[in-house]
């Protein structure tokens, strides 16, 4: 399976070894063409024009919503709200839902290894409401102990938010168990699916979270587009956080009534081309043999972990049994930034730093890590190129 040929970036940079798909994925021709064709031959605004271009754009916009509904197996397309990305989606839930239901003394429960996007909005809600933000601890290997998690739930817990897959540790968290326990206790759950959407089968009916958030750009789609899945039971409880055109039903000087969901959460002219690009990305994903993709990613992860373990002074941060394709590591005496610069000089793109998750760095007692992560275009050659360059790093710092 040679997927590199689907991605023009590898034509522009034949030597590129791209190992940062957890940050953002490269774009396949199918997505680039969809956006480009849309702008060149079909572009118009949505929801208002009576002319052909606008009618066609609206049709495409709605078709995209339905394609995404089917991709994540949501009960209805009204559960699929377009946002600008995961960050926006989480903020929508924090300020459109949590802010209205969380009261003084209540608790919001998240893990201690979340991305800043799944910490800071809750911190803000907690500060404004006088509520407490509590953290589920994660084991040294990067796992959540379900009993420990359960023990942290109290009568005051008003919301649980956690990543499906950790962007630093690569751990796949037991979200099915978590949502089941939350449901028993009547607590809404938000799952941050940013890292999962391109790597795990996502099924809203089976998982049945209250909210599920992801970004298009980590799914081979464009930036500036994401999704907030909102369950039926939550749709009526949510308030919009953006007000203006498109989200209304009727506007009078004194009073406005809102459009039904999902439009009521999509104020303003939406990112139409990005929505169409996301549709193309979903098509692209569905054209792949998902099991084969997973098998290959698992193989690459095992390969890279096996080799890293054999290098002296390398520490892998995150050794969960259930793991996805992001692998963080440190090397004693060599700062991740220096690793990153040296790899970059060999055209190898990896992520170094705190990965927008400073609490995770503190948890594992490191200032930063280096992280390799895979996408559908990666192969064994990429891993070997990475490992060769890593040897060069070790030589420089000898």
């Amino acid at each position, binding site marked *: 399976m040679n997927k590199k040929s689907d991605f023009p970036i590898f034509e522009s940079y034949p030597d590129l070894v791209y190992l940062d798909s957890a940050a953002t994925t490269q774009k396949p021709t199918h997505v680039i063409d969809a956006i480009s064709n849309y702008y060149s031959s079909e572009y118009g605004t949505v929801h208002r024009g009576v002319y052909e271009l606008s009618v066609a754009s609206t049709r495409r916009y709605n078709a995209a919503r339905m394609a995404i509904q089917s991709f994540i197996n949501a009960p209805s397309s009204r559960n699929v709200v377009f946002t600008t990305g995961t960050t926006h989606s989480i903020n929508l839930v924090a300020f459109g839902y949590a802010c209205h239901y969380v009261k003084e003394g209540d608790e919001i429960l998240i893990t201690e290894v979340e991305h800043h996007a799944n910490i800071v909005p809750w911190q803000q809600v907690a500060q404004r409401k006088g509520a407490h933000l509590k953290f589920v601890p994660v084991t040294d290997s990067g796992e959540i102990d379900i009993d420990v998690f359960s023990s942290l739930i109290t009568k005051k817990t008003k919301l649980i938010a956690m990543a499906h897959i950790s962007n630093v540790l690569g751990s796949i968290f037991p979200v099915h168990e978590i949502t089941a326990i939350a449901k028993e206790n009547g607590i809404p759950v938000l799952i941050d699916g940013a890292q999962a959407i391109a790597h795990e089968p996502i099924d809203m009916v089976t998982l049945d979270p209250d909210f599920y958030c992801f970004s298009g750009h980590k799914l081979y789609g464009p930036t500036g587009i994401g999704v907030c899945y909102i369950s039926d039971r939550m749709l009526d409880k949510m308030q919009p956080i953006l007000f203006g055109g498109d989200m209304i039903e009727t506007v009078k000087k004194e009073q406005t009534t809102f459009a039904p969901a999902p439009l009521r959460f999509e104020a303003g002219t939406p990112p139409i081309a990005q929505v169409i690009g996301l549709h193309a990305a979903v098509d692209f994903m569905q054209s792949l043999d998902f099991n084969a993709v997973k098998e290959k990613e698992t193989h690459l992860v095992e390969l890279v972990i096996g080799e890293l373990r054999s290098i002296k002074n390398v520490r892998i941060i995150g050794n969960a049994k259930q793991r996805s394709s992001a692998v963080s590591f440190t090397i004693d005496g060599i700062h*991740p*930034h*220096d690793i990153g*610069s*040296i790899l970059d000089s060999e055209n190898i793109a990896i992520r170094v730093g*705190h990965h927008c998750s400073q609490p995770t760095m503190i948890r594992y007692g490191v*200032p930063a890590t280096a992280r390799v992560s895979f996408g559908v275009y990666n192969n064994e050659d990429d891993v070997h190129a990475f490992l060769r360059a890593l040897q060069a790093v070790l030589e420089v*710092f000898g």
Partner: protein
Amino acid sequence: MQKNIKKLYQQVLLDHNKNPRNFKLIENPTHVARGVNPLCGDEYQLYLRIEKDIVQEVGFKGEGCAISKSVSSMMTQAIIGQHVHHVIELKDQFITMLTEEISEHDAGHLLGHLTIFESVKDFPIRVKCATLIWRALEAAINQTSTNVSTE
């Protein structure tokens, strides 16, 4: 490996990274500042004892990449025993060397060994690493703000 990366990670730099000089707290500092690069989490504390306008003692603590650490180490050596005016000039020359279009040759007659960091310019992302401790130095001397951030 590409040549400029070799030039960047010269032996001197690696030596200072491994064994940073003046990597310590000092007693009774008259000037202190903290430098952080929020993007990568580099963080240093700089301590100075300046008496009669002369840097009598200097120390730094903290954590960061080889570039930020070796620059810090060499900076402490360059400023110890120097007059504050000279220190400020040194700082200006160093920052100019990395942020403006000048040749290595003109980089600043005061910089001496510190000119080895000229090659950081080839790695624009890393310029902040090299200037971090100098910004902290600036803040410490001015005592305007004792927290500096590269962002």
